[in-house]
């Protein structure tokens, strides 16, 4: 990678050292509602993600998981507390970050190739070079030959692959994933998880991965963070000591250690889910 794209070498070097470490300290985010009331989305969240670590955040609906990601990316500013990436405080858009959303954030009016090219183009890479790189990435996610299609012509799984190529093409030091596979069917989801693990093991960005799916979190991560119902804060942190490379996520689900960890984490999550459910049921 580095020999092909010398101008990105510094960031790749950054990644191997402490450049990709995410430190979230005492993070609080309050929103002002249009009526002038304040709403606390997350309160005093402290999480550390080591460089190259895969960290999942699991929690009930509306507990501020997405809010946490928005603070890390620099799209929003924290009300209190701080986020540091690689030792420097996040004050604007953090560079070297890629985002992946549940809804595939693809440009419907751009071809698959142009979609993947966006990242390098925005970094100022010459068009021809960006095209070659994008073609290479489409090949890596198994979409060679689909360059000229438009997103609406692809299946959900294929669109996810395009989004993944678009997110990884800049070789980000941090990958933020907001329920990326939430809308996929079970089989496609498993395939995409394997695909993600394979690419992650090649590039090793630090990952913050939001999910509702506890199995998914355990199968993919080094660390699982459980958040409480709103205002969200960290309830528990679990280290997942399953060996890497994990191999097939569908098979790992049957291993004894996996089940043990999963059961353990579910104990912690269960209360929060019940509480969140009771609250929405009460409100309705």
């Amino acid at each position, binding site marked *: 990678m580095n020999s092909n794209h010398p101008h990105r070498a510094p960031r790749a070097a950054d990644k191997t050292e402490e450049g990709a470490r995410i430190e979230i300290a005492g993070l609080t985010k309050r929103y002002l509602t249009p009526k002038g009331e304040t709403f606390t989305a997350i309160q005093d969240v402290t999480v550390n993600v080591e460089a190259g670590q895969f960290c999942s955040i699991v929690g009930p609906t509306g507990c501020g998981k997405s809010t946490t990601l*928005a603070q890390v*990316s*620099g*799209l929003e500013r924290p009300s209190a507390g701080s986020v540091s990436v690689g030792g420097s405080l996040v004050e604007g*858009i*953090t*560079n070297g*970050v*890629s*985002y992946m*959303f549940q*809804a595939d*954030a693809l*440009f*419907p*009016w*751009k071809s698959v190739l142009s979609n993947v090219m*966006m*990242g390098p183009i*925005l*970094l100022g890479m010459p068009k021809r070079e960006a095209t070659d790189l994008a073609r290479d990435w489409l090949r890596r996610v198994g979409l060679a030959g689909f360059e000229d299609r*438009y997103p*609406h*012509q692809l299946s959900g799984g294929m669109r996810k692959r395009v989004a993944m190529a678009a997110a990884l093409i*800049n070789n980000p030091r941090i990958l*933020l994933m907001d329920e990326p596979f939430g809308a996929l069917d079970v089989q496609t989801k498993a395939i995409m998880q394997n695909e993600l693990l394979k690419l992650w093991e090649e590039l090793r960005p630090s990952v913050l991965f939001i999910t509702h799916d506890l199995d998914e979190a355990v199968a993919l991560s080094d660390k699982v963070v459980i958040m409480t119902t709103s205002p969200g804060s960290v309830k528990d942190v679990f280290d997942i000591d399953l060996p890497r490379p994990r191999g097939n996520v569908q098979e790992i689900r049957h291993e004894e250690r996996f089940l043990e960890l999963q059961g353990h984490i579910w104990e912690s999550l269960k209360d929060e889910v019940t509480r969140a459910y009771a609250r929405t049921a009460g409100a309705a």
Partner: protein
Amino acid sequence: MTTLTHSGSRKIEKPMEPEAAAKAAGRSKARRRTMSIWIGRVALAVIVIGGWQWFTTEGWVDKFFFGQPSEIWSSLVKLFTEGTAFGTIWENLWITAQEAFLGFILGTLVGVVLGILLGSNKYLSAVVGPYIRIVNSIPRIVLGSIFIVAFGLGVFPKILLAAVLVFFVVFFNAFQGVREVDQNLVANVRVLGASPIQVAMHVTIPSAMTWIIASLHTAFGFAIIGALVAEVLGAQQGIGLIISQAQGTFDPNTVFACMVIIAVVTLAAEYLIGALEHKLLKWRPPNRSEAQAI
């Protein structure tokens, strides 16, 4: 189950026959359908125009007030062969088309720019929003009188009135289009390091384009209305002037003839806008609704 597999295997032995028959049946069915649609269309036109002709000939409807198809046709022929009191019909048509077209361009440009600007700036839209709604609620067609008093009988006040009518249609669509932009897309390119201008170029404008282009169909109709009404209010040349002249001489046939001419122009413009839409929005999934065909 057994019968199913049996018929399946037989299909492999003689693959063409049933499929070819089904295809032929489908084609002839589609042909019949198209035919019956055209028969219906022609019948409708014959009933309406023929009925009009018949009723006026019989005197049940006074042709002095409501015209008559055959006389509308002879008015049309007269307009194109003998011309009008204000020069040939082509000169007049050219003037009106020019006014409508320039008004359309001006109104669209201003509408798109302001719509995108206000749509992407919350503060600005909060400040200016109520005024735009107030201006939108006044009968803008009356502005034509003011423009003619202010700018005389030339082409300019007509362009201005057409532009004002076009502006609001395009503006509200551009504004809404910007508001409907997928915020995930915006967040995505911002994280990738896009500047505000790049966000506009890559996300906001292309995304609002669907709305803007949809509004152009209506907007061109308004441009024609603006130009015609301004001409009726006061002009030296133009189709609107011919119409108001015909009104003054109790000549409904010429008024209808002018309507036919304008309808042809509008249909041609509509076709061009449709082609533009097709070209710019070719990325869109095909629309399956039947409304597209109307």
